[in-house]
């Protein structure tokens, strides 16, 4: 059955989300709501040092405390061989992952787990932590990415060698890997330029800031099978990672995804899950673990701070002739920063003949980074989009016009090589150029300096594996079962896709997210992949159900299945003489016409459609305090076909909000000893609703040719442009290029003061 866009009846509408009432009435069950009979509570003892050798751990006093049932340390976890493996969007090194969730001979960051205690109450577990005696030999920490790369830097992992170098070295290092993307003739490109801009940028480590802390409840049965209830973006990856870390057969672990209170990439790995399962195994009782906010900030995975050098040249006509980038990303204590993605996204919006991008993945004494919404791309765009803005300024060309002249389109080779299929980058630039916002004059704000800035961004989006089941109920409604935890309205999107195919209303379809034993393998909710890939599986599964429904009608009518037509929820026969049946009528007769109908599909789609965005922001700066107020913000994005436009707009607004926080105030603040000083939301400053205007959105719908419904991922790219757009607005307001994130009031005030002091 072919669906044509202009005939969509459900896709593109805005029904109430299926999980909405439970969430707004507080009924939805999150991980921390799970409670089992006889359950113990476990807490983690964490390192008070950024870098230290563990000389000894004495748990005897903790074990002796009444109510304590078990204590585990690094010795209780299996030692794993070195080596990495690809797991969906992530490259995972199980050995390092195991060392991250429980330190072995060394602690590598403030908050690194050292031991865990299970007791009959959380308070007893907490008291027991104080009774564990750990003897440390304190080592000097390294907290700056460039210092960590130096030859004389303190070494975190003695076994680590740089991968990706032309010559193999056997020298211990903190540089885990290096990567280069290059093409054309860089020198010739810069020679051809009339203007060259080169700048250095630094960005701070930032956290996703999801509301719900990490949690896990685990149960271990005498037959060697275990179950984990957890708020996670990837129940199948939790199963696989726990299987590796605990050396348990994969099939012996069942993961039940609870409702999730935000993830943004940060809930794609494990911290507590293997510990809870191990403690459950040791005690024979269910074990619950929930982190505090301070634990979330100190010891889960933020995204990288970075140092980026970016040089670009352009001709008077406004054509970019060459681009050179050197970027080093903080991986945290173990390898695995998103520097590769940073390299591949930084210049992706532009058609470039001559380029060279070098990237370095560097370990240092901070928590191991994890995915965060378009991982690696926001830092990168902050650098490149500032340089682009300056080139346009020096050439006297409107910054959007400059982007339009150099913008990537269908057939443009990406920095990493492959050519783009149909993309909508230039359309987003034009959408902002033509927007009421960009065409309006900047408002005047008494006592403030105002400025307007623009920036663009790119994100690949992901495909990967998904499974879906669509079953027809006897009343003609349908159930959609998937394994993709819903972090962005994807239950509604999947239900709408099934409804479109089946000719039902969205509310006649019940979307369900189930556990790892009740659906086929489904990769992590990440990479903006769920509506694209799981939606693809739902589309195929619904088509499978339609095919079966036609067969059943053919059986009832004693005609050939190919003579049956399914349209708008009604089956009819091309031969006259058979009264058409609605899906409801047909569903009621299935019991006597071959039994229930269940469509299923498993996909690994390749036709991923990347996302592009262009944003414009107006700001007002208090020149004395340096405080920046966001006056107006408009985001245009190529979203492909918007299945549920409200949730697409919500994704854009959420991404922009996080990008604004990253731009202005968010940062991991460490003292000179490497101790994190802002371990709560009071001093780790995400924007509140009072800090943001209504974020306006423009949905540019360029259908993705790689998806039967034209769907692209939408969730990640909106976080990419904001820091650069705000930096460019700041330049217009105060006349200084800000090159350090966050652009906090102190830095802005200093820039204004120094500019005023400098001879004009």
């Amino acid at each position, binding site marked *: 059955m072919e669906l044509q866009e202009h005939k969509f009846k459900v896709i593109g509408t805005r029904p109430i989300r299926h999980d909405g009432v439970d969430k707004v009435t507080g009924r939805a069950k999150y991980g921390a709501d799970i409670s089992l009979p006889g359950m113990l509570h476990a807490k983690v003892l964490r390192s008070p040092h950024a870098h230290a050798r563990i000389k000894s751990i004495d748990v005897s006093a903790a074990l002796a405390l009444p109510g304590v049932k078990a204590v585990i340390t690094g010795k209780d976890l299996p030692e794993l061989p070195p080596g990495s493996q690809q797991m969906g969007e992530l490259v995972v090194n199980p050995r390092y992952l195991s060392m991250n969730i429980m330190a072995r001979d060394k602690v590598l960051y403030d908050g690194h787990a050292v031991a865990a205690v299970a007791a009959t109450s959380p*308070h007893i577990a907490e008291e027991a932590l104080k009774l564990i005696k750990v003897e440390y030999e304190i080592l000097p920490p390294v907290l700056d990415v460039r210092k960590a790369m130096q030859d004389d830097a303190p070494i975190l992992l003695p076994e680590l060698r740089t991968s990706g170098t032309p010559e193999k070295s056997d020298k211990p290092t903190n540089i885990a890997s290096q990567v280069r993307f290059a093409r054309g003739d860089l020198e010739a490109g810069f020679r051809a330029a009339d203007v060259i801009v080169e700048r250095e940028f630094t960005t701070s480590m930032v956290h996703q800031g999801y509301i719900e802390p990490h949690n896990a409840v685990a149960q271990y049965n005498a037959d060697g099978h275990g179950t984990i209830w957890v708020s996670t973006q990837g129940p199948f990856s939790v199963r696989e990672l726990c299987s590796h870390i605990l050396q348990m057969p994969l099939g012996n672990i069942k993961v039940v995804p609870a409702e999730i209170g935000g993830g943004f990439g940060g809930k794609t790995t494990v911290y507590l899950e293997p510990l809870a399962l191990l403690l459950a195994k040791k005690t024979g009782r269910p074990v619950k673990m929930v982190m505090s906010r301070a634990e979330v900030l100190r010891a889960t995975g933020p995204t990288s701070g970075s140092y980026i050098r970016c040089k670009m040249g352009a001709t008077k006509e406004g054509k970019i002739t060459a681009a050179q980038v050197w970027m080093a990303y903080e991986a945290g204590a173990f390898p695995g920063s998103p520097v590769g993605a940073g390299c591949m996204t930084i210049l992706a919006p532009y058609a470039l003949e001559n380029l060279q991008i070098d990237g370095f993945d560097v370990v240092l004494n901070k928590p191991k980074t994890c995915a965060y919404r378009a991982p690696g791309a926001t830092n990168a765009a902050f650098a490149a989009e500032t340089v682009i803005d300056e080139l346009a300024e020096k050439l006297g060309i409107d910054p959007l016009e400059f982007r339009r002249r150099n913008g990537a389109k269908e057939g443009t080779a990406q920095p990493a090589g492959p050519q783009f299929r149909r993309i909508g980058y230039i359309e987003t630039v034009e959408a902002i150029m033509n927007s009421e916002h960009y065409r309006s004059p900047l408002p005047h704000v008494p006592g403030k300096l105002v400025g307007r800035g623009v920036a663009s961004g790119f994100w690949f989006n992901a495909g990967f594996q998904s499974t879906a089941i669509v079953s027809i109920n006897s009343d003609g409604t349908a159930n959609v079962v998937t394994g993709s935890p819903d972090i962005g309205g994807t239950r509604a999107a999947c239900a709408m896709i099934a409804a479109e195919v089946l000719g039902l209303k969205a509310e006649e379809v019940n979307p369900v997210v189930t556990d790892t034993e009740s659906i086929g393998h489904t990769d992590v909710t990440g990479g903006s992949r769920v509506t694209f890939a799981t939606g693809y599986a739902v589309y195929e599964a619904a088509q499978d159900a339609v095919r079966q429904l036609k067969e059943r009608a053919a059986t009832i009518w004693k005609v050939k299945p190919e003579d049956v037509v399914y349209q708008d929820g009604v089956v009819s026969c091309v031969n006259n003489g058979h009264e058409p049946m609605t899906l409801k009528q047909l569903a009621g007769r299935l019991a006597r016409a071959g039994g229930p109908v269940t469509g299923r599909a498993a996909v690994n789609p390749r036709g991923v459609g990347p996302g592009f965005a262009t944003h414009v922001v107006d700001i007002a700066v208090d020149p004395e305090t340096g*405080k920046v107020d966001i006056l107006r913000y408009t985001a245009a994005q190529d979203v492909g076909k918007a299945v549920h436009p409200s949730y697409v707009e919500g994704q854009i607004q959420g991404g922009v909000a996080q990008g604004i926080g990253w731009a202005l105030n968010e940062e991991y603040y460490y003292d000179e000893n490497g101790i994190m*000083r802002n371990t709560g939301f*009071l*001093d780790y*400053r995400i924007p*509140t609703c*009072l800090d943001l205007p209504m974020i306006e959105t423009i949905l540019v719908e360029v259908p993705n040719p790689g998806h039967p419904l034209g769907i692209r991922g939408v969730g990640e790219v909106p976080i990419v442009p904001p820091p650069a757009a705000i930096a460019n607005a700041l330049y217009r307001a105060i006349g200084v290029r800000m090159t350090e994130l966050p652009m906090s009031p*102190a830095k802005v005030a*200093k820039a204004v003061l120094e500019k005023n002091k400098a001879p004009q």
Partner: protein
Amino acid sequence: MHAITYEAPKSLEHALRLLAAAGEKGRVLAGGTDLLIQMRAGVRTPERLIDAKTIPELQVLSFSPHEGLRLGAAVPCYRIVEDPVLCQHYPGLVEAAGLIGSVQIKNRCTVGGNLCNGSPAADTTPALIALGAVCYVASPRGTRTVAVEDFVVSPGRTVLQPDEVLVEFRIPAPPPHTADCYQRFIPRNEMDIAVVGVGAAVTLDGEVCTAARIGLGAVAPTPLFAREASASLVGKPLDDEAIATAAELAQKIARPITDMRGTAEYRLHLVGVLTRRVLKVAAERARAR
């Protein structure tokens, strides 16, 4: 986590007896918006909590042109913010009380608790210093008075002895052409702790300043009364030059630190900015009276 007892005395006399019996293990609980968090974090570990909210003497809120303001230590901030008489006579104090936390926090937190917590960044303290507020402190030995600027001795520590209770603040009625103002700087628009806070009160005779007091927050281990800066304004017209001089003198006594809320250099800069701003607003208000 350890066991605690909670007491809700119905009179000051009862509260003083309970506190004396508790000794070092007792602590007065007002709104609890600081204390409970500190207890959870293990920063303070009292074993007996004596609730100030149930003591009538600590709930006094009255104003007369003759006596001035009596502000009970356990009056929640929402009562201050919503009181038309206070809004008229002490707009700076109302500004400070209105800046603390969310609506929910304001329903709990108190000016007395804000001071007894001993934080150098307390919003209401510079406003109280600017108004020349005096603390009335009770103990089994009787009542003593302490100027607000002398109350905090170091971060988290005050002049209160274990058996003493802060009962109320007394603030003189503002003379004619007198007004106050409080402003703080925070990186966000709400829900934050002052990077720097400055309160000022001025009295004018025509254009000439006849009295001035400036209080500074978050720029030293304790809230400060900027004595010289205040004195420099008296006898002069309250013009830009006088204000700039006072701001420079205020900066001279600031001894800020660098932490996650701001650098010392930035805080010093903000002392100047905010002192100028609050003096200008206070002067405008005073002229309008």
